């Protein structure tokens, strides 16, 4: 059954006022390590979440038993949940019918890939690693989302996505690269492995540096990861309502360098396009930061109703099991700058650090935007405007607002960096980011040499 049929069947079973969200996944992931596929996973699943409304009380239940007895039990559990909830005076009701604009994001060729193809594309990366063993995966999948409700709302989208990710590593070095797209033809598993292996070869013989504040160039992988973490507290309406966002009391103020423009744009065909959110509200492009000025955050219907400040949903409602996180961006997009290449950014920096990728970020202080983590798979010194000798993995503790306050430059091309780690149901999303050069990147510790 397709997602729309599942959602309709669930809604019919509910009887009264209700909304059904169906999420279907077909995917394959060929994970390899030491140049051998060791964890090949094929997933087939279909889940449906029913929200039953009794006055201003709503109850939610989810199942993947989509036959008649399964849906009947689902309706019963959702009704029990609604009866168990106290009345919610700020409940905005179910979404009225919407008409989301058609978006791209579905590709027949990607949808048709089967296990033999996924294994073959993994083999392409393995072969391209050459003398450096590779660790990573090729994955492709189809996800379908359908939302119907008794208001007459009926929206449906099919999405494809494909990712190749490679860590190339031996005992003496490691490198990283990845590509994500909704069309498999837009990604090149061989080029990804070559980029990672070449980076790994350059990290051999890594040296140490003293902790301190450095100028730095961050590749899109590193910049996107940091921005994604920062966004969880700072770019959603709930972070502002709860006052843990850096944007608390700062909307309208200049907070970053004027070269910084950040939007959330799920409609961009270069990303992983989405037509609507998990309440069926059409996706809007939201300008979060404009010329360094904090402009806005993203909203869903529930938070907009609670805020009582005239805010409207921007199409960022999360799935039911993440409701308590509030609305969050899932298509961050940073406007590129003027630099032709990362080498040009290194020239602008003159003396500093070159950082490929980050690892295991942790938010030290949400309100101040302080995030710690390690650099990984390609950290270098920049000397005399050139990317120079390799460095060991470094611990950084950075206030993201400090990093973005004095920006030396940005490359003129943004890349899509995958942000999903494929927990739970597949829902492809990522960050479009150029490489960034900043005046300030704070190193607070020294780790081990790159390599396995």
């Amino acid at each position, binding site marked *: 059954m397709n997602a729309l049929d599942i959602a309709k069947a669930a809604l019919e079973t509910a009887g009264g006022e209700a909304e059904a969200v169906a999420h279907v996944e077909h995917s394959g992931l060929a994970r390899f*390590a030491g140049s051998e596929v060791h964890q090949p996973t094929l997933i087939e699943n279909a889940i449906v979440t029913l929200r039953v409304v009794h006055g201003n009380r709503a109850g939610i239940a989810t199942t993947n038993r989509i036959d008649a007895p399964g849906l009947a039990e689902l309706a019963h559990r959702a009704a029990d949940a609604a009866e*168990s909830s106290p009345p919610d005076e700020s409940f905005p009701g179910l979404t009225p019918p919407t008409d989301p604009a058609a978006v791209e994001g579905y590709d027949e060729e990607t949808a048709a890939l089967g296990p033999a193809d996924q294994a073959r594309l993994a083999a392409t990366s393995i072969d391209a690693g050459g003398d450096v063993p590779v660790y990573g995966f090729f994955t492709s999948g189809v996800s379908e989302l359908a939302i119907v409700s008794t208001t007459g709302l009926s929206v449906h989208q099919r999405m494809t996505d494909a990712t190749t990710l490679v*860590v190339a590593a031996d005992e003496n070095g490691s490198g990283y690269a990845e590509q994500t797209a909704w069309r498999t033809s837009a990604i090149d598993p061989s080029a990804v492995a070559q980029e990672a292996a070449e980076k790994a070869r350059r990290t051999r013989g890594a040296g140490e540096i003293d902790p301190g504040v450095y100028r730095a160039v961050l590749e899109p992988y590193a910049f996107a990861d940091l921005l994604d973490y920062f966004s969880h507290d700072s770019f959603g309406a709930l972070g502002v309502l709860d006052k*843990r966002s850096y944007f608390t009391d700062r909307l309208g103020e200049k907070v970053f360098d004027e070269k910084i423009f950040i939007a959330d744009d799920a409609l961009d065909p270069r990303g992983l396009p989405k037509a609507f959110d998990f309440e069926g509200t059409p996706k809007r492009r939201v300008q979060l930061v404009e010329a360094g000025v904090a402009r806005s955050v993203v909203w869903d219907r529930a938070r907009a109703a609670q805020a009582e400040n005239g805010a409207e949903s921007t199409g960022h409602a999360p799935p039911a099991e993440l409701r*308590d996180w509030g609305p969050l961006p899932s298509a961050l997009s940073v406007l590129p700058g003027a630099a032709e290449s990362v080498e040009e950014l290194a020239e602008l920096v003159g003396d500093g650090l070159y950082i490929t990728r980050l690892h295991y970020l942790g938010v030290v202080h949400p309100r101040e935007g302080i995030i710690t983590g390690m650099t990984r798979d390609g950290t270098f010194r920049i000397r005399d405007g050139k990317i120079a000798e390799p460095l060991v993995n470094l611990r950084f*503790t950075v206030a993201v607002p400090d990093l973005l306050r004095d920006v030396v430059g940005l490359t003129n091309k943004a890349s899509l960096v995958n942000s999903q780690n494929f927990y739970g149901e597949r829902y492809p999303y990522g960050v479009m980011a150029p490489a960034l050069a900043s005046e300030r990147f704070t190193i607070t510790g020294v780790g081990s040499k790159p390599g396995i």
Partner: protein
Amino acid sequence: MKRSQFVATKSGRVERLSDSESEGIGVRVLLNGAWGFACDRRLSAEGARDAALRACTFASAAPGKHSRQLAPVAPASGAHRTHVERDPFEVPLAEKVAQCLEADEAMAGPDILVRQAMVRAQREHKLLLTSEGTEVEQELIECGAGIECAAARDGVFQMRSYPSAHVGSSCQSGWEYVDGLDLTGEAPRVAEQAAALLRADECPSGVMTVVLDGDQVALQVHESVGHPTELDRVYGTEASYAGTSFLKPGDLGSLRYGSELMNITADATTKGGLGSFAFDDEGVPAESTPVVEAGLLTGFLTSRETAARIGAGNGGSMRADGWNRMPLVRMTNLHLEPGEGTLDDLLADVDHGVYMETNRSWSIDDKRLNFQFGTQIAWEIKDGKLGRMLRDATYTGITPQFWGSLDAISGRGSWRLYGLTNCGKGQPGQSAHVSHGAAPARFRNVQVGVRS
């Protein structure tokens, strides 16, 4: 089949009330030395056959040499169910909501901005059948709960939780575990401390003695002993996501992990442990094995495959996050064995130091060597006694040096089980539920206070 309920309230209203179930069959095949895995949500002969055939297709297509061997295991049959006094799914949702709202309300107070309470329950019913003749049925039941509040004033933002941050603490138990936590009774203290933190001094920087509470010790064990002793990480098969390990296979029996006081046990038989079972997901019976004895590395966490590869152990740590993921090497319950005396005894031998309580932030490098942790609250230790309250406490270190500086652990009387539900690993991602037994512990010459 897995059923889970989650109720969360926030500042007097229900934030999330979800009740979800998911069922299906996962088939892992070892075909000519190569793994394949496929799953299907249909619990029928047809679903099982389809999954098995697709798993075989993926295994035969997987590139690599493939000569995977498994440590032998005797075919077993049996059944196991978590002992519960009160089945959490017999507890009405309305009672769960009321419990949350009551604790939520009890945190109200000056400067308290956000109050949150949550309770959760999970039942996993699984049947393991292998072609070697194993047939095991298990029903594992978990409950958990926690409260948290945020305080803010003059741009300072602080949080306090009980019994742990990051969705509370959980236990394999009936609802009696949640009742025993006495969320409402603890709520006023949690709120008072959050408000007091707004006026507390910032934790100073320097090298000093640190005493950690059991909650932070549990996380320290998890990140810097649990993950690096997972033998799949040692062999590099997790390199593309969670990372590798500073340990090498040859370190077994010879590497000094910490001081002579350090004894770590992996115990899948601990009553109430989230990693307890009768058989793991490869059919290996539960056991309790030492990992570190008197500071020496004497064991790894293994699968049948990694045990065969290293020639030691027999597996027993393989768990999958449900029917649609492959089993991975996961911690079961990993304990730091208790020492002697009380927390006051630990403090008595400190002239100048810091006592830290309840994890707030965490980050560690891919080899699990360089870590940085922050806690919600701390107190200065002066002349053997607790002094002024401190906020924003962090400490950083290198794993073997840090454990080498362990010079006291409190006794059995303050040893508790901490159950966490957010341990991520694998591609596609899997969340594991893991418990750690820990007591307050003292470490000398630790770098405290990391500024961005």
